[in-house]
């Protein structure tokens, strides 16, 4: 079955927030943001702005009727700044005007008096000053300190990975309407409708039942609209609540890039110890996470970094410590992988450092240490139904590592200007919210009397195809055509207390809830059929909309059955709840069983570097991926290809540059570059690993959202490999993204100093 949404997408008929017809009387909002990264907010002067044409009202923290607080994990984030500003782009005031042009134009007339305070942008500086969001966390297994003396080889180093702007093509936005009884209805572009509801209620000082949040779909989220959509939903709602007119707030691209948080940059120290046979005996790592100015989701992201600090390897002695460091940047947030990729980049850097020093291919160390069935992760969950070796060996069988390496070597021997590089990137990613209570979902299924079906869940469609999968689950469970099924918008009045669409778990959680609801309805209808048509319940089923009794067509079909059930007063609605079984995790001991299952895979990346210009093209990313029993190979393949390319972007092109004043220099699409058509690998086969899947996965079809992003890490190491082909023995810093600039500076380290004449450099 095809992804359902694209038929509407290609005709331009899918509605996003900004496409909703505006109601009469709608005001447009624009956000006045802090122009400095840290300071004391002394005064605000709105006189000139209020005199501008069309300006109706300017709201500040003083206008908030409830509590000025939207922090999700730690209550450290005001909706509108009060007394202090902590990052450039922090919302300070909300201008409401008759048109969007007028609202934006008024911003220039607002004067803010701010006394500057010292600015921190570097997480290590923050840690040294004790500026931590939460106390540090350590995951520990075995005794790494006692193991170094038993290691034949010990290496240490530093690895840095940059942030990443989500760059959903649809910017953040919300449209809020005052409702009767003093409530607000919000149409929000959010991955977390309940978060918007909860925080808005809190800010307005009213009950959650007074706030309705509705989400049709997002034009991309990638984690950037998990917690960070809340600000805009709550601001629009505040406007609507105070002024009692509809308020629309859609950020323009540059405002979105300035004001919202991104993937966390990390700076990390590692130490790795190996036995003579290349077994990794010990690994110590310290992560400095650049959290930005408020907690947001940083503590949870930090935790996942620790979960995935050893990637897909078994290491008996591990000490992994992480610091969430408060800096004066926008609060960093969820982004596909959620801290996992940052941890895995350091692990791979440590392996490559060891391999380069020992003169062995990194793949020799990687293969030697892959997880096997029953091996413990540092958090003590065993690897079960473990496919680490299977995916590696399958990749080797299909793509032939030795042959690939020989081809690269032959090319390099015959080429001076162009050098190829090759890397292998095995991955392992745990599926579930690591905060165990979040692993629950509900589905509300209505069968209408004409046999059509409406399904509501907490899942938000943002391109990952979850609505299609839910429709598939419903159709398959009820035995009817997917054409009869409509997956409704995600609405907090239909399905309450939802977890955000995140952690790759949306299809599993909401799909399982849908499956339970549909199974209950099916059973109810079949029981009804037994009495109504005098049939035996055993062997009764609905297949292709036909009721079959022991495989023989009965005298009724789906439509008739539904209609007769209604007239016999049988309920055609079901509400089901699903909570992932067996999960537990103790965040004080950092031990437990946090994941429903793990996803595995392996990617080979081949790159060609132009060693004259420092530019590169990816020849191939060849993937073997553990889908389980994919319930929708077309959607799943799209997720793998898309995730891998996003990961390549993070590791290569995408460079967030903040200056010392905390100002984002790469603040638009012309300076922040994400992959385009020509920067994707030319060849990108995806092999579906043949496995039975996992019973905790929906229809045994494993989660596909986040894991493929980490194949992109291979891009960094492939480029590094090519640099070493041009300049053997060169030890580049482990610093991602490896932009064309870093490539060229690494290709010509000696020329850099020589190229700058002293007199001129002083002048420049």
């Amino acid at each position, binding site marked *: 079955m*095809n*992804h359902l*949404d*694209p038929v*509407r997408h*290609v*005709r*331009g*008929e899918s509605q996003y927030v*900004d496409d909703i017809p505006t109601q009469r009387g709608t005001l447009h909002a624009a956000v006045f943001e802090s122009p400095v990264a840290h300071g004391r907010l002394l005064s605000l002067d709105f006189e000139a702005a209020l005199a501008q044409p069309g300006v109706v009202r300017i709201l500040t923290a003083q206008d908030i009727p409830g509590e000025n607080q939207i922090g999700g994990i730690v209550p450290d984030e005001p909706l509108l700044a009060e007394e202090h500003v902590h990052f450039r782009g922090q919302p300070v005031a909300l201008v409401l005007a008759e048109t969007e042009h007028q609202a934006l134009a008024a911003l220039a007339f607002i004067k803010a008096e701010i006394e500057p305070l010292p600015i921190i942008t570097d997480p290590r500086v923050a840690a040294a000053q004790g500026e931590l969001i939460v106390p540090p966390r350590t995951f520990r297994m075995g005794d790494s300190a006692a193991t170094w003396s038993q290691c034949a080889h010990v290496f240490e180093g530093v690895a840095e990975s940059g942030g990443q702007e989500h*760059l*959903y*093509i*649809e*910017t953040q936005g919300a449209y809020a309407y005052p409702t009767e009884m003093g409530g607000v209805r919000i149409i929000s572009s959010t991955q977390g409708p309940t978060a918007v509801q909860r925080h808005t209620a809190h800010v307005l000082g009213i009950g959650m039942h007074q706030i309705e949040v509705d989400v049709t*779909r*997002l*034009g*991309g989220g990638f984690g950037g609209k998990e917690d960070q959509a809340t600000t805009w939903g709550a601001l629009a709602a505040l406007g609507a609540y105070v002024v009692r007119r509809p308020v629309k707030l859609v950020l323009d*691209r540059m405002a979105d890039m300035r004001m919202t948080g991104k993937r966390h940059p990390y700076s990390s120290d590692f130490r790795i110890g190996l036995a003579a046979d290349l077994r990794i005996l010990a690994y110590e790592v310290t992560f400095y996470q650049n959290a930005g100015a408020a907690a947001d989701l940083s503590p949870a992201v930090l935790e996942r970094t620790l979960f995935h600090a050893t990637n897909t390897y078994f290491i008996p002695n591990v000490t992994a410590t992480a610091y969430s460091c408060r800096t004066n940047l926008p609060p960093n947030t969820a982004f596909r992988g959620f801290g996992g990729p940052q941890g895995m980049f350091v692990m791979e850097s440590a392996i490559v450092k060891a391999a380069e020093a020992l003169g062995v291919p990194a793949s020799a160390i990687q293969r030697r240490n892959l997880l096997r069935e029953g091996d413990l992760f540092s958090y003590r969950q065993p690897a079960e139904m473990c496919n680490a070796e299977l995916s590696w060996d399958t990749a080797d069988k299909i793509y032939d590592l030795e042959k690939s390496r020989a081809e690269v070597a032959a090319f390099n021997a015959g080429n*001076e200007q162009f050098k190829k590089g090759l890397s292998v990137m095995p991955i392992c990613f745990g599926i579930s919210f690591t905060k165990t209570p979040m692993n629950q979902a509900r589905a509300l299924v209505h069968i209408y009397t004409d046999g059509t079906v409406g399904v509501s869940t907490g899942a938000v469609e943002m391109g*990952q195809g979850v609505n299609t999968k839910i429709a598939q689950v419903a159709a398959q469970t009820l035995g009817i055509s997917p054409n009869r099924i409509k997956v409704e918008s995600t609405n907090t009045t239909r399905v309450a207390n939802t977890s955000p669409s995140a952690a790759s778990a949306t299809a599993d959680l909401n799909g399982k809830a849908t499956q339970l609801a549909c199974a209950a309805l099916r059973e109810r209808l079949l029981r009804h059929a037994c009495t109504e048509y005098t049939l035996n319940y055993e062997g009764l089923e609905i297949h292709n909309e036909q009721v079959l009794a022991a495989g023989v067509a009965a005298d009724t079909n789906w439509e008739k059955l539904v209609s007769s059930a209604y007239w016999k007063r049988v309920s055609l609605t079901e509400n089901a709840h699903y909570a992932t079984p067996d999960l537990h995790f103790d965040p004080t001991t950092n031990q437990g069983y946090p994941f429903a299952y793990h996803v595995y895979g392996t990617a080979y990346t081949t790159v060609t570097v132009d*060693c*004259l*210009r420092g530019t590169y*093209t990816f020849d191939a990313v060849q993937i073997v991926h553990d889908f389980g029993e994919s319930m929708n190979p*077309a959607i799943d393949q*799209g997720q793998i*290809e*898309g995730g891998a*390319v996003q990961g390549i*972007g993070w590791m290569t*092109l995408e*460079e967030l540059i903040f200056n010392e004043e905390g100002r984002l220099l*790469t603040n638009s*699409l*012309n300076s922040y*570059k*994400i*992959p*385009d*058509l*020509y*920067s*994707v690998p030319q060849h990108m086969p995806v092999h579906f690993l043949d496995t039975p899947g996992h019973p905790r996965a929906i229809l045994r079809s494993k989660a596909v959202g986040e894991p493929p992003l980490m194949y992109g890490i291979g891009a960094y190491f492939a480029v590094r490999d090519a640099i070493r082909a041009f300049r053997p023995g060169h030890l580049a810093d482990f610093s991602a993204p490896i*932009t*064309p*600039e870093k490539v*060229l*500076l690494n290709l*010509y380290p000696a*020329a*850099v100093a020589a*190229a*700058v*004449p002293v*007199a*001129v*450099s002083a002048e*420049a």
Partner: protein
Amino acid sequence: MLHFYLNNQRIRTDQPAGSTLLDFVRYNQHLTGTKIGCREGDCGACTVLVGELQPDGQGIRYQSMTSCLTPLGNAHGKHIVTVEGINAAAGTLTPVQQAIVQEGGSQCGFCTVGFVMSLTGHALSHKPATSESGLAAIDGNICRCTGYKSLERATALLTDQLAARPAENVVSWLSEQQFVPAYFKDIPTRLQALQTELQAENEANNQKPEARNQILGGGTDLLVQRPEHIRAVPVQLVYDQAHLRGIRQEADGRVVLGAAATAENLRDSPLMQQLFPRLPDYLKLVSSTPIRNMGTVAGNFVNASPIGDLTIFFLALDASITLETAAKQRRELPLRELYRGYKTLTKEADEQLVEITFPAPASTDFFNFEKVSKRTHLDIASVNSAAWVRAENGFVQEARLSAGGVGPIPLFLTNTSAFLAGKEISAETLAAANAVMQTEISPISDARGTAEYKRLLLRQLLFAHFLRFFPERIALRELV
């Protein structure tokens, strides 16, 4: 008053000529299929097709443009097509839409319509559909879910289908194949009628503005930099002025470009292709297909970006520009003398750039353009450079080098060019030339790279020019 066709609908509007076509389509006409992604021509979510009646009065040439940067005034007299204008009956899809759905080329869907429009433009193109031209058609469209591989597969499918497209009566065939609705066949007649009507109207109220208004070309810079200003002031549209278009060679060998010639016009020009056989490769590095359809050469010069690709290209060709006042006073100025400092010009406010000329390089001359940016395509250069060299018997006779991104203005490398004249072509000469070059540049660290990187990169581009010109005399390993 602006008059044009939007899909199947005749439009008369008094919206400002300097407002954007995007805002008109979305917020005035409520056609929400066209999306807003960046408002700076960098994502393609707002791509529409702009059809222009050809001089023969028969055919329409459709080009993809990003409506966020298309001045509404540039729609005047044209056929603007949004997705609503190509959609077939409810429940059916055009072959372009079908291919994208079938290959899984749409995930979140926000960029999708842009791809649909770009590929529909590809179908409407008069050029043969190849896999390369298919991909080029979508080179201005960004997909963050990165369904690029599936979009590549969809494009390949379409290219196969378009192999059957006849050379004549393209629109009839496309209409039969459901690529576009049948009303497209009537558009040439309707636009002809519209032109006749507008001509009569123009003659009736032929008023010249007294002072020179804000000149507005393709909009690709001004509507990024100052959209609110451009929307608010009277504008003088130059994009469609016939006398500012065209590329020709004079009897004395000089080549003359109309100021409103676009980058795509350069690429399409047989004369330019003959003079610069690698021109398509160079221009593939310059923005994207829709932006090349819009941006003018003169706009690139006057924008005065220190990194303007076309400026750097023409500096090395020793181009001159003709400036004209509102009172039709003309003067000629070497392009290299146009720049006074960062974003400031020696051009008077009253002067308009109307023509560009340059001496055609001899077939024995060497010319090369280099550009390195963070992302190879659809990006602004970290450093770009062009070189023209005349050489004989292993010696440089004359050289002209230019470089962008290494100073406050697009630089003509006067000293380096002079140094090279008369020198033997060797690694030693290039090392010495680099030393000279490093003293006449002053790069700063910014989002496009650090100063030290730009210095090193320009050295590499100098080497790249000469490695391309004289591979038999120089090898990379000797240079680095």
